[in-house]
């Protein structure tokens, strides 16, 4: 199954670092899997954990959040808050039985096109290993 299964990964990238890093990967013609759907946010600290929950509800098999390395945040400290919050979210998802491989977070700077490729490859690999995530789908169930 893992051969055909093409996971859907929603990635929330900060405008200043990872989004630029992903852009660099593109302009440098670095090949990486096409499974990620990128949503640009101004800062990883702007990622409301409910974005992650909603993405999983609406058909994502995995979620990736990426921002600037600690110390490099355009807003000085946004990514520090993100780190705290998303760690809690990760624990919560795991505790409720969501496969931990569906949730990844990374620091990728504007110059790390290669790291971006590796992060995406890891996220895709993880999501493939975890398999399709149907159980949580938002369904307009029942009459």
């Amino acid at each position, binding site marked *: 199954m893992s051969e055909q299964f093409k996971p859907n990964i929603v990635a929330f990238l900060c405008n200043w670092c990872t989004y630029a890093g992903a852009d660099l990967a593109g302009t440098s013609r670095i090949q990486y899997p096409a499974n990620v759907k990128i949503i640009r946010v101004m800062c990883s600290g702007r990622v409301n*954990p*409910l974005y992650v*929950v*909603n993405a999983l*509800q609406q058909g994502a098999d995995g979620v990736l959040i990426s921002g600037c390395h*600690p*110390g490099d945040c355009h807003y000085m*400290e946004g990514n*520090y*808050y993100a*780190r*705290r*919050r998303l*760690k*809690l*979210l*990760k*624990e*919560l*998802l*795991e*505790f*409720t*039985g*969501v*496969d*931990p491989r569906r949730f*990844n*977070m*990374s*620091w990728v700077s504007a110059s790390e096109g290669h790291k971006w490729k*590796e*992060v995406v490859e*890891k996220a895709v690999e993880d999501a493939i290993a975890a398999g399709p995530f149907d*159980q*949580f*789908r*938002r*369904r*307009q*169930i*029942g009459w």
Partner: protein
Amino acid sequence: MDLDKLRKTAAEVVSRDDVKYLIGWRRGTFGYRVAPHFIEDAAGVDELIFSPLCIANLANYLTLTEKLPVPRGQEADTRKVALLVKGCDSRAVAQLIVEKGIKREDVVVIGMPCPGMIDWKLLAERYPETDVAAEIGWKGEDFLLIRGEEEITIPRAEVLAEKCRLCRHPNPVLSDITIGEAVEPWAVAEDSGVAEIEAKEAAERWDYWEEQFSKCIRCYSCRNACPLCYCEDCILDRLDPIWVNRAVNFSENTAFHLARAFHLAGRCVECGECERVCPVGIPLGKLNRKLARTVREEYGFEPGLDPEAEPFQASFKPDDPEEFIL
């Protein structure tokens, strides 16, 4: 517990000019129920009690009570609210101060060192409720149920509420007046409820919570009973954007429960109200306690101990754990 001293103190406090009312507990109308009791004048203190059934956290009313706009030409009532708090309740007060949900000077806190509360459902399994409100007290380590002539000793371990079994702060962390002597905190065993779930495989955990969340009727009693769920514009009620659909089904219920647990991470003081009020018995406390433990063990922080602390999710340390980040 010195009930006379409590009533006398309460009478003094409600008689103060700068106190609007005092919130305590009174005997309920039947069985093992106890009701929050709002006292406006000294006469009301006669019904005031403190017993092992006084489990409700009254700090909730500090934010739940509606603050209506003051009609033009009238002065706002700025008098204080006095309330009785156990250890866990006092932590809710402290956390509310941290979050600027209330101001310290707006409350008069009467601290009740707490020997532990009864989970009345456990008690009712052994001694069914009757139409007469039961009288219950502490007797050494144990509890004493008085029914007419009959006095029944109930071993502590049989009916102690789960949250109390796990309680690390039975003495109020802040108070203006304390009634009675501080209690000796008891040894707290590992949180078996959380550990049992952690020991399961991911798929089993999912099944466990699926069964639980599917029962939810979204009455939002858990939210409303929580002293720290007090947003004026809760995401659950918002229509634009809709964060969680109003439809009651497993997917939306799960989203709701993830949101609720997350919003309380680093804030929950483990007073157990959410789980206590749930009409369908969803073990919400396990979600909260799991995250509280992470915050305690990995960040060395416990909410509601220090009214001067910084809110956990709105602060950070440069060396916070990040082993999970690629």
